[in-house]
């Protein structure tokens, strides 16, 4: 049986034996505080988002989200254990309590929010699904892909959108689905598939990180779906969800208010009441969340604000060279909008 099947079995046992966990809200927050660290489910290796280096130390956009939460909780961004999960493993891992949250480019959908027993933190990346093909094929658009063989990761929204798109356009395709990302990408680059489809940000990451010559491949212009990517926690664990949610909002609010990793110490002395409230100069916010009053200060101090994290791992100065686009602040024409911290 596959690893996945074993995980399923483990889930069955975990849920079966799990003596009905305490009914009060926030078992995860209590558990995390007691353990002195969080367990974060990330991808098995996508350049820019989450990738281990030669020492096995993870870095990337999604990793910094986990580091920010760790910093807000413990004043230390490195109290995180990273668990690499494939698309098929991630949900059982979260359901069974193997990880405390997923920060791995999971698309927010109704079914996952309800039937799978999850809750979503705010969207941290607005993405859309695209196709990558080799230039040799001379394909200019997704509508020309009739009859193509397409590599796609199983158990993703991508897999469903692919089928939907070809059905809607009355085209035929043959999927090749392989759970392990390495094998899937290798299959595409060896020519087993005509096209590789996933979120366009991940396509860019794969092109940069895995292609022997990135210029041999193009990403087709069509975006066939909305892919709002957000961290995921278990349903009904409200206090924990609040912490994850507001740490992310603090990173976004930090960018809007101009609070950056470098100037956060000066900003902490700022007399602007909204900034004072956020950085703990005026107490109350930390207590409301069940955290130290320095929670937002620590998070931004450790990883920088949302814009800094984006630029460092995904932006134009990074190898991925992604535009901010929808992921710019609402004040700059994007969709990133944090509710007031008060």
């Amino acid at each position, binding site marked *: *049986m596959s690893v996945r099947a074993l995980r399923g079995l483990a889930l069955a046992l975990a849920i079966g034996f799990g003596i009905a966990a305490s009914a009060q809200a926030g078992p995860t927050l209590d558990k995390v505080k007691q353990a002195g660290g969080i367990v974060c489910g990330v991808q098995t290796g996508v350049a820019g988002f989450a990738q281990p280096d030669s020492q096995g130390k993870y870095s990337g956009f999604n990793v910094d989200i986990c580091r920010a939460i760790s910093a807000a909780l413990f004043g230390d961004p490195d109290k995180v254990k990273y668990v690499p999960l494939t698309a098929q493993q991630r949900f059982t891992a979260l359901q069974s309590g193997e990880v405390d949250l997923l920060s791995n480019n999971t698309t927010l959908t109704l*079914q996952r929010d309800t039937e799978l027993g999850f809750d979503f933190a705010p969207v941290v990346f607005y993405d859309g699904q695209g196709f990558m093909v080799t230039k040799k094929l001379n394909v200019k658009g997704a509508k020309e892909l009739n009859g193509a063989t397409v590599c796609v990761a199983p158990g993703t929204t991508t897999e469903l959108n692919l089928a939907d798109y070809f*059905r809607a356009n009355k085209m035929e395709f043959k999927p090749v689905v392989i759970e392990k990302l390495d094998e899937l990408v290798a299959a595409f680059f060896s020519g*087993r598939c005509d096209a590789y489809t996933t979120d366009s940000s991940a396509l860019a990451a794969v092109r940069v990180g895995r292609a022997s010559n990135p210029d041999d491949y193009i990403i087709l212009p069509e975006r066939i779906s909305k892919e709002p990517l957000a961290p995921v926690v278990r349903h009904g664990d409200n206090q924990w969800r609040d912490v994850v949610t507001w740490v992310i909002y603090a990173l976004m609010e930090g960018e809007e208010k101009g609070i950056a990793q470098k100037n956060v110490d000066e900003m902490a002395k700022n007399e602007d009441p909204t900034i004072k409230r956020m950085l703990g100069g005026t107490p109350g916010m930390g207590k409301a969340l069940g955290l130290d009053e320095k929670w937002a200060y620590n998070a931004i101090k450790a990883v920088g604000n949302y814009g800094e994290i984006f630029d460092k791992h995904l932006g134009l100065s990074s190898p991925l060279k992604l535009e901010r686009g929808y992921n710019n602040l609402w004040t700059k024409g994007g969709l990133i909008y944090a509710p007031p911290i008060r």
Partner: protein
Amino acid sequence: MASETAGALRPKRPPPWNDPTIRGIAYQVLFVGAVLGVGAFLVHNTLQNLQRQNIASGFGFLHREAAFGIGESLIDYSPADTYFRAFLVGLTNTLYVAALGIVLATILGTVMGLARLSSNWLVRKLAQIYVETFRNIPLALQLFFWWGLLRGSAPPPRQAWQPLPDVFISNRGIVFPMPLHDPAYPWMFLAFAVGLLAAWGVWHWARTRQARTGRQFPSGWAGFGLILGLPLLVFLAFGAPLHLDVPSLKGFNFSGGTGMSPEFGALLIGLVIYTASFIAEIVRAGILAVSWGQSEAAMALGLTPGQRMRLVVLPQALRVIIPPMTSQYLGLTKNSSLAVLIGFPDLVSVANTTMNQTGQAIEGIAMIMAVYLAISLTISLFMNLYNRSVALVER
């Protein structure tokens, strides 16, 4: 009265707690009760926890639209079909590769097992190298190896190799022409079935006649002629209708004809070669288990080497071979679930995707387990029936 005398002679009954029968029953009741109790506790707790976490449960999802594509299928399937249909696609793919694998592994394994006993040094050593190599490398690695070889060494479809007219080999697999359906074909199939029956009849008749009169009849050749000849006659009687569906390059890939994907090919080759290396050893052991005196006796009676093997050695060897062979068949079937590694849509692969899209892992795992259990028990049943028919009947 007799019964009274017997009662008087019987020793006094021990108290119930010292009575082995009553104690045995009590222990069994306690054990079954404990197992049922733990089971009920688990089921109850699972349902409660699922509900608390707001995770859906039940098998209702099977009737919903699957909405994902499957690469290869023996039955009609489109993303508009239900999860249940998708599950059936996976099941037929598993059964297909397992059935084909069992037949091919038996043939290859028998040949290799006989080769290991060959009097020719080179043949013997080559067979030994084969067995020792493939038996000792994990199957998963072998699958990756064959898959890499099949998709890595072949050219893209537009530069496909063409070893025979209308047969193309590319990194999308192999495609070859397939006869289009014709009204003659069902009749040919019927003729084939009649041929099989007739061949069995001839064999039976020849055997009884030989037992009675000692006269031999070439029932093998006659049966072969009947099985192949009858369908051929029907085919000719219909005017030899043969319209081929010839594959041709259209857009990205070949359309028309039929074929085999690199994933299916790699899985089949991997399973067959791996399992056959074990079967070879079983066959060798089975033949060696028949004492040499049997062969000497056969030679003394003037049987040819072929007859000796067929009539004297193999029937006795089969008694040793069949039970471990059953394990190999079961192993091959279950190992086919490694298909997920290389992306062949077998039962586990489809069920995995289903579980992930619906989040209903427990139901999915239960279905996988039930199906493999059913397949394994079926194989076991048939092998045990066959084993009984070849086993030594003691009089």
